[in-house]
């Protein structure tokens, strides 16, 4: 049974449809990457999965169970983690407090998980008492991912985790995504840095105009001359 399944998903904001039938399947040991041109509905798809906008048609399933249009709160309880692209930290809270908020539903496990997150993102350890808003972009992204991981999710949704980061940090974040996935967390992420992202992707979804244009393994999409020509800049 797939970890996360989206079947013919339609939806959008205020009556205007942005998604016109998107299909996706992710297994528990896979990294899925959504790429595509601006306005294709990549981020909208993640938000639809996380219950942030109304799905008008189609279905989303988590381990076979229908979760279409459930509230984010409920989805977090069911083991879904979401890292938005912007405003993904609590700026005036310290790094440590940001992480604690991620474990709000499981306060008993907070200290054990915090230690693991610091091991996973070493730069955060020495900055743990600093307000998260004072950190650099890459470190903020670590805080944001750390916060989501504190809930021990079974599937993690990342919205452009490398946006605006230097190439050094970008590779670092992609490495972390691979490690998170190896630890048994299914990952679905939206990426602008399509080539690098597809390199670590088990599955790639090329969206255009709210529909799947190409769906294949990451490697196959990178090799496909048509994908390369229209979506990866040659």
């Amino acid at each position, binding site marked *: 049974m797939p970890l996360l399944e989206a079947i013919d998903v339609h939806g959008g904001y205020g009556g205007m449809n942005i998604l016109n039938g998107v299909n996706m399947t992710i297994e528990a040991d896979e990294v899925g990457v959504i790429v595509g041109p601006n306005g294709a509905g990549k981020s909208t798809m993640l938000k639809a999965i*996380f219950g942030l906008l109304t799905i008008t048609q189609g279905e989303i399933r988590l381990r076979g169970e229908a979760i279409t249009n459930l509230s*984010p*709160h409920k989805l*977090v*309880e069911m083991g879904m983690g*979401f890292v*938005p692209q912007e*405003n*993904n*930290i*609590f*700026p*005036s*809270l310290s790094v440590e*407090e*940001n992480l*604690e*908020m*991620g474990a*709000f*539903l499981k*306060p008993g496990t907070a200290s054990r998980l915090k230690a693991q997150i610091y091991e996973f993102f070493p730069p955060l350890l020495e900055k743990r008492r600093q307000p998260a808003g004072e950190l650099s972009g890459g470190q903020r992204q670590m805080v944001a991912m750390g*916060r989501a991981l504190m*809930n021990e999710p079974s599937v993690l949704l990342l919205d452009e985790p490398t946006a605006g980061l230097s190439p050094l940090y970008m590779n670092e974040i992609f490495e972390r995504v691979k490690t998170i996935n190896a630890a048994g967390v299914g990952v679905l992420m939206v990426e602008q840095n399509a080539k690098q992202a597809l390199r670590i992707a088990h599955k790639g979804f090329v969206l255009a105009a709210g529909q799947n244009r190409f769906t294949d393994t990451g490697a196959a999409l990178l090799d496909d001359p048509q994908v390369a020509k229209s979506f990866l800049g040659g």
Partner: protein
Amino acid sequence: MNELIYFFNYVVIAGSVTGCIYAIGAVGVTLIYSILRFAHFAHADMMTLGTLAVLLLTLAFPHAGDPLGLPTAIVMLPVGMAITSLIAVGIDRAFYQPLRNHGVKPIVMVIASLGVTLMLQGLIRLFAGTGSQNLYVDARKEIFRIDVPGITRPIILTEPQIILFIVTVLAVVGLHLFLTRARLGKAMRAMSDNPDLARASGINTKLIITLTWVIAGSLATLAGTLLSLDVAFKPDLSFFLLLPIFAAAIVGGVGHPYGAIAGGFLVGFAETLAVFNWSVLLRPLRDSLPTWLELPNNLALVGTEYKIVVPFFILIAVLIWRPTGIFKGKVI
């Protein structure tokens, strides 16, 4: 030296008393703003309402405080705080929550809170009448005169003032520990920082909202009661409190509890200094002044009856020159 004691009694003590009241009130305003994102104009009436609850309890059991040697109103304070918190949560459920669920703009919430203000004022007058009433029922306010050696004039402190200082310190320390140590306190700051992310982290935002009203209602009762205990309960108390506590919250930077405390003392002392009769301090110099310069009997910046002008002036000055307040808060 008598003049210094006079200054101490009429500025240091009086200013601290006003400052404490404003600070506790402003903390409530600022907490409600940071969680619910609107200026809650009914907050001063919540202070009056809490005081009324304590007054009614005191009238019902006038001697409850005797065994403890405390004013009955102080013993009834926790019960009054609980009742007011319940009413505050009830008001939120009945009036503010439906609007919130509709996703209205903050200004609609502000107008709704004005409606709640008028409703509460009517309700308070219905139960308490229009006159002022003493919170010491069948008892007398204790006044302490502390003699300073070598000076004829004593330092004057009243029992409610001493209790106010102690309770303010306890409330501030308690709030600080709650916001920085407790899981729910941190969640409250998180929700103030980024409500969407708080929801995405699984924080129960409805619980946080309820908690905010409980804290705001309790603090309002605390401040209103301690002020009325020192002076008297008046149904129009809120009229004299609303402007100063909003001035204090804005001066301190909206959304910053510590800023609200600083703002409260700033406004309290500014008000006290403005109505203070400076000619008393100049009196010892009277003989050395040239004959053409006669010392007036009253040398205050504004008359006591106009002291509400001071917070109003501070409010406008801050809004013009530094709308984010001392601690860089949000702009209402």
